[in-house]
């Protein structure tokens, strides 16, 4: 059994592990095989901007540098909030109790979701209790942090007949629009790789 998270409300507690849900596990997956015209397998590489140097996956590294491009040991860095004050580390959700707050379905529609987890309960009675509570339309919001770090995610707990799920991501505060024209930066480059990271089969 995986590590358990303790979810709690004012007068209830549930313990569950998390199993990541993704398209591969739900629908299967597609792998692309690329060959040259003689049928020999090809791999992906990168040509540097000198036009001749070829590098293969795994042959680059990320380095932290100062504004003069001098390398800095990452261990010597500290995290600060954007206003410059020292950032406080947020513990992993596996190491603390998760406080659930009842929220609205609209919050779910404001949540840009990056990860889906299915809750695995050791105690079937707990699963049944929480699933029944959520299946009737209740949703809980909470703050989630898989690993200790400085930036926790927003999350929503909900259920259907299949199980209880935690949807992790970022709550977006959308602005309602009036009949005014805002200056937009238009992106005309249709070939640019967009930031969406999921596909249909």
């Amino acid at each position, binding site marked *: 059994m995986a590590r358990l998270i303790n979810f709690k409300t004012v007068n209830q507690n549930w313990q569950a592990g998390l199993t990541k*849900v993704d*398209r591969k596990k739900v629908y299967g997956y597609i792998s692309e095989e690329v060959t040259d015209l003689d049928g020999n397998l090809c791999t992906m*590489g990168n040509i540097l*901007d000198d036009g001749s140097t*070829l590098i*293969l996956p795994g042959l680059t590294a990320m380095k932290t540098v100062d504004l003069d491009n001098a390398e800095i040991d990452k261990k010597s860095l500290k995290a600060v909030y*954007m206003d410059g004050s020292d950032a406080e580390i947020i513990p992993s959700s596996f190491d603390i109790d998760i406080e659930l707050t009842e929220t609205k379905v609209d919050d779910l529609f404001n949540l840009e979701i990056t990860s*889906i987890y299915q809750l695995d309960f050791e105690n079937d009675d707990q699963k049944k209790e929480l699933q029944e509570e959520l299946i009737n339309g209740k949703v809980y919001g909470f703050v989630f942090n898989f690993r200790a770090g400085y930036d926790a995610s927003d999350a929503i707990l909900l259920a259907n007949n299949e199980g209880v799920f935690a949807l992790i991501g970022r709550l977006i505060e959308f602005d309602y629009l009036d009949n005014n024209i805002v200056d937009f930066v238009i*992106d005309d480059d249709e070939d640019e790789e967009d930031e969406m990271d999921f596909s249909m089969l």
Partner: protein
Amino acid sequence: MSRYINIGDKNGRNAEVLFSGVTKKPVFKMVTQAGKETKTLRVVKGTAATSYEGLMLKYKTSEAMVDEILNGDPEIDLLMTGKYISSSSRVYVDQKLQPVARIHKIEKVFDVDGNLKEERIPKENNANILSDFPIKPTGKLFPKNSIYNKLVFAKKYQLSHVNGLTFDFLFDIAKELHDSDSIALLGAGPKSNEPLVFQDGGKTYRAFIEGRVKAKSYLLIMHLSNIELKSIT
């Protein structure tokens, strides 16, 4: 950054309006102990020629390669190692580590247990969000309080008007959805039954549109979904 989309309504009206995502603002940054700014750069660790594959091509056998590494430094490119990478272009590479200009692609489709189901030629998708056929609601409405726990609405884009006429147009769409407390499936193509493709050669997405209104203002969100909320055990 905004892009145009040609969207229609159930009354046969359509307009080119803007859509954009909401970029996440950073919450924290890493600085030196003295509080000085830092940045992250990508650097070269090694080139194809100095990689394991490159050295095997050159020295033919593992034993010969090991001897060369022990006697010299063929695995290090002193000119390139540590060089900052400002930009690069992705290329396919053959087994001789040469760029390949003409390739053949096959998609292999596997089921959830990893069994090969099908091999097929990949379909090249053309962008369809700004075509002659507007993106339109397919007609079926999904009440929010019954769809919220069936699909995962991962990515969100906000639609925006570009003038007074398109304000009215989008406001009306938002109001109808708001009043019905539902979202609508969007479809592309002549029959409005195709998934959305945002750029040529891009992936396909199922999109739903949600509308909210508050007094004289509106909010239209395009939700992209590609997975149902299903148990995997």
